[in-house]
């Protein structure tokens, strides 16, 4: 009998699921060696099917998305119990990801932004409710928690696989490893390891030329008149997260003149990705007087959103005061 595989999405966009399918024929290897027991995006199965399984009967579960609702938490606990190996898959499950940025706001203001924001047409101010009496019976929606948590803030996690989404070649390498483990040709790395990623920074994989930096002006990419295709983007005044971000993506963004946005999470050894990036940026900036420093920093309109674009939920502070005061 083939070992069982599962993949689940919590507070996520679905991109991780697409990323797995984007491995082309590799997904057939997965199917050849595993019995896909539960994967809501790809096949029909019910939560009660998982609940009926014996504990530990899933060999491996790839869990993507953060924990934002009581349903997310229920599934994290359930899949932890049923899985021998639980992998936090993708930026949201490992670091909070983009949905984790809502930790800067209270739940109320996040709901207002979604249901009454300038990009929403909602004349009757219809809002979601957790229970609704329909003619067929009571309908329920899971409750939202005050903050988004990463998977390892809810249940113990065996492996971390970063990326938004993880790159296809990295997923393929992990599938190969799992197949070898099943065939007894390889053993699993130590628990708590980061898999499917490099052990250095994005800068190390970036082919751009680096010189002594003395940044006098920061701009966003749409404000740039021209971008030199050979020289480091940070040197050219584009805020690139490469120095603080784990390698593994082959520096795809900087290679096409888009600064790294940090989706592979904190670089090895960095406790807090945003703090590491602040430290790195301030080291290569010009300015010896407060006023001169401020002129350069004015080029960063959204510091928290820039430095913690993916890592806020897993950062040392984990949220802004607006969210944690509501939680407390």
């Amino acid at each position, binding site marked *: 009998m083939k070992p069982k595989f599962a993949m689940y999405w919590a507070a996520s966009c679905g991109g991780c699921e697409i990323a797995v399918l984007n491995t082309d024929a590799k997904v057939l290897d997965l199917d050849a060696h595993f019995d896909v027991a539960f994967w809501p995006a790809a096949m029909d199965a019910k939560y009660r099917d998982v609940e009926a399984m014996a504990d*530990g009967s899933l060999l491996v579960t790839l869990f993507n998305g953060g924990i934002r609702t009581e349903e997310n938490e229920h599934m994290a606990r359930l899949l*932890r119990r049923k899985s021998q190996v639980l992998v936090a898959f993708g930026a949201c499950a490992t670091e909070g990801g983009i949905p984790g940025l809502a930790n*800067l706001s209270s739940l109320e203001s996040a709901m207002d932004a979604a249901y009454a924001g300038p990009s929403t047409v909602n004349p009757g101010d219809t809002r979601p409710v957790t229970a609704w009496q329909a003619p067929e019976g009571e309908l329920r929606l899971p409750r939202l928690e005050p903050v988004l948590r990463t998977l*390892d*803030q809810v*249940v*113990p*996690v*065996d492996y971390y696989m970063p990326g938004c989404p993880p790159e296809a070649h990295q997923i393929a390498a992990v599938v190969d490893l799992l197949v070898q483990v099943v065939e007894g040709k390889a053993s699993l790395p130590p*628990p*708590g390891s980061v898999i499917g990623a490099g052990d250095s920074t994005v800068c190390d994989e970036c082919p751009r030329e680096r010189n002594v930096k003395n940044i006098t002006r920061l701009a966003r990419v749409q404000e740039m008149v021209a971008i030199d295709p050979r020289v480091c983007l940070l040197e050219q005044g584009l805020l690139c997260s490469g120095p603080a971000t784990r390698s593994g993506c082959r520096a795809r963004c900087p290679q096409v003149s888009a600064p790294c946005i940090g989706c592979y999470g904190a670089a090895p050894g*960095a*406790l*807090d990705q*945003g*703090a*590491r990036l*602040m*430290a790195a*940026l*301030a*080291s290569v*900036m010009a*300015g*010896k007087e*407060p006023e001169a*420093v*401020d002129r350069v*920093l004015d080029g*960063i309109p*959204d*510091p*928290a*959103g820039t*430095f913690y674009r993916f890592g806020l939920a*897993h*950062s*040392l*502070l*984990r*949220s*802004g*005061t*607006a969210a*944690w005061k509501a*939680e*407390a």
Partner: protein
Amino acid sequence: MSDRFEPVIIGFTCNWCSYRAADAAGMGRMKYPPNIRLIRLMCSGRIDPTFVLKALAEGADGVLISGCHPGDCHYLEQNYKALRRHRLLQRTLAQLGIEPERVRLTWASAAEGAQLAETMTAFVEEVRALGPLAWPARPRPAAVAELHEAAAEATP
């Protein structure tokens, strides 16, 4: 004992000027409040924003960073780096809802024990007026390894 709020403040001082200033304050029998816990580093340029965030996340109500005066850095220009990191960190903290005044940067030469003691005293009062930061104690990523071990033990 009075009921007034006693803030916990972490002070990072450089080895060459500010720590010696604090030492001079002590040797000169000048008083400054015990709320401030000094940590000596070789240079203010060594201070990573991580240190400040870790202090705040683990119970500090304020952080004081003290280095050599501009132009006087033992390592030539590293105190300018401290200045840039401080201003950048303050902007980020403000967005997170933490009063930027909770993280103060100051300069003190080895001869300025009295001035540093005065700055520290004033800073303690400022943070006292701001009130507790009281960042919630949540399971930290470091605690996850322990959870993992507990789960491994529970699994037959």
